[in-house]
């Protein structure tokens, strides 16, 4: 079975694909290079900018299946799943991949049920064994890795952001766009409103390349400003431990860990966080882990690449200062 690798586009809701889409395409191209097959993009959106389509082609999508329809925003499984399932039925792709985002996680689950296909969620690696695709995914809150393979249907997977190497853009490729129409689907769920989070000017936690995270050691909500200053200099997102969230210092969406967000930034800086196993579950695939803690025996130092033993109220402003010097 040759068949295409389909990468479902995650976009910024302004008509541009997000970086994680380049990561999907990059990995799909690597795997397709090994077992054969083409790499195609699948985009369901209310708005696809021409530059967005060019971007997908530049990353290496040889074909773009495009549904552009106001009914697709915001995401509803009821509208997206039948569209994708019908096309998959006609085209028989080898694989359908999405990103680990709130909507793609649900989309791929429903699609797998519709197609009777296996789904490997939250993958961090792919390999080939006996000519078959094998996915690696963290389980038990990241305490173990599970290698899984598909027994039936296309290989459905969601890929964790920031883990896979993004495809490099090659300009000058003309996008090949196959426009699709939605058909008449009347979704039962009626959209009421979207409540935006307060704009911090900092990147989204799950997508950020650098995350600065704070725990109970910060002593109070007002002290998160220390982290926000550091994050501002680094262009980083701010995260929090559950202790900080449960104390009401930060809303739940900031929580990193087993019952919060799973993140995989290039650089994670944990400040005043002890490193409980449930916290590690959410950040242990970070590439470089730094910790600031005044207790030299804090468990976070066991997985930290760099540990600073000291008072965060002294160390963090000094770090901000040093990073700022670099930027100048």
């Amino acid at each position, binding site marked *: 079975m040759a068949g295409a690798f389909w990468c479902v586009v995650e976009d910024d809701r302004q008509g541009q694909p997000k970086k994680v889409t380049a990561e999907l395409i990059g990995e799909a191209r690597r795997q397709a290079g090994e077992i054969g097959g083409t790499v195609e993009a699948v985009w369901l959106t209310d708005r696809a900018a021409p530059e967005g389509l060019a971007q997908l082609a530049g990353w290496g999508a040889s074909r773009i299946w495009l549904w552009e329809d106001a009914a697709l925003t*915001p995401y*509803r*499984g009821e509208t997206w*799943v039948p569209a994708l399932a019908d096309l998959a039925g006609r085209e028989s792709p080898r694989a359908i991949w999405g990103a680990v*985002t*709130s909507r793609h*996680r649900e989309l*791929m*689950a*429903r699609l*797998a*049920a519709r197609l*009777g296909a*296996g*789904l490997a969620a*939250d993958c961090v690696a792919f390999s080939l064994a006996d000519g078959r695709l094998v996915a690696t*995914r*963290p389980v*038990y809150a*990241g*305490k*173990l890795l*599970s*290698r*899984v*393979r598909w*027994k*039936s*249907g296309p290989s459905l997977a969601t890929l964790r952001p920031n883990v896979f190497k993004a495809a490099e853009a090659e300009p000058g490729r003309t996008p090949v766009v196959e426009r699709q129409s939605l058909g008449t689907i009347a979704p*039962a*769920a*009626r959209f*009421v*409103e*979207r*409540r935006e*989070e307060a704009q911090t000017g900092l990147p989204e936690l799950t997508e950020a390349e650098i995350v600065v995270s704070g725990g109970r050691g910060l002593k109070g909500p007002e002290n998160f400003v220390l982290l926000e200053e550091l994050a501002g200099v*680094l262009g980083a997102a701010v995260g929090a431990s559950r202790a900080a969230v449960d104390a009401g210092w930060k809303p*739940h*969406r900031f929580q990193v860990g*087993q*019952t919060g967000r799973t993140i995989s930034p290039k*650089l994670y800086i944990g400040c005043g966080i002890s490193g409980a*196993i*449930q916290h590690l*579950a959410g950040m*242990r695939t970070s590439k*470089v*882990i*730094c910790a600031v803690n005044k207790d*030299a025996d804090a468990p976070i130092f066991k997985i*930290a*690449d*760099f540990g600073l*033993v000291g008072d965060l109220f*002294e*160390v963090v402003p*000094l*770090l901000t*200062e040093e990073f700022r010097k670099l930027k100048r």
Partner: protein
Amino acid sequence: MKMLVLVKQVPDTATQVKVGSDPRTIDQTGITWIVSPYDEFALEEALRIKEKRGQGAADEVVAVTLGPERAKEALRSCLAMGADRAIHVNDPAFEGADTLTAARALAAVVKLEAPQLVLSGRQAIDDDMGATGAQVAEILGWPCMSWIMEEAVSEDASQVRVGRQVEGGLEVFDVPLPCVVTAQKGMNEPRYPTLKGIMGAKKKEVKELKAADLQAGGLGPMAPALEVVALEALPPRPPGRILTGDPKDMARELVRTLREDVKAI
């Protein structure tokens, strides 16, 4: 209004899990089992819906699990928290079931019970798949809303208003019942069972169902669509460097090494 809450029994978050002698499964010796935390949020929410609607509404909260004999303990905890009764899909035929097979079995239970609302956790913290709730909805042809932070069932129980967490905000929908919602942390603080609750739980019904019983609910194929090849321990992280001493020197050295040695910035 009848509500079904899907609960899975999982190892306690603080438990060290090890690969078993069959590398596809974990070593179960010494494990403390709990109700998966997100499922507790789902159950708590169902109990609150019932309480809010009051006595006259004749609401019922049913906890459902698919799992081996030990999973009964999870159902007992749910009953102690306040669920009215429980259903245990307990059949060796489901041993090693993948997510989709579990979803098919649970969807069959839903068909047999015909509730207005199904609540599940956002994900079970053992396989971390985050798929079962949505798959149950798909199999039933119902709407589904995932990662719910808040909900309000309309007075006539014809629809539910839900706020679902998405990157950058909260999306609010009105969804006609029946539907499936999956609970995200932050929607409530689950109660602890009272002593009275624990005692009362012993008298509540736990119904056992076998695969054969689910045929009437249209149980689909049982062959897994995904198989585990092997579980493995994490590759060890190389030992880190611990800096101590003057904060200024530490800060300077960290920034230098991040820049020059690891090139992380």
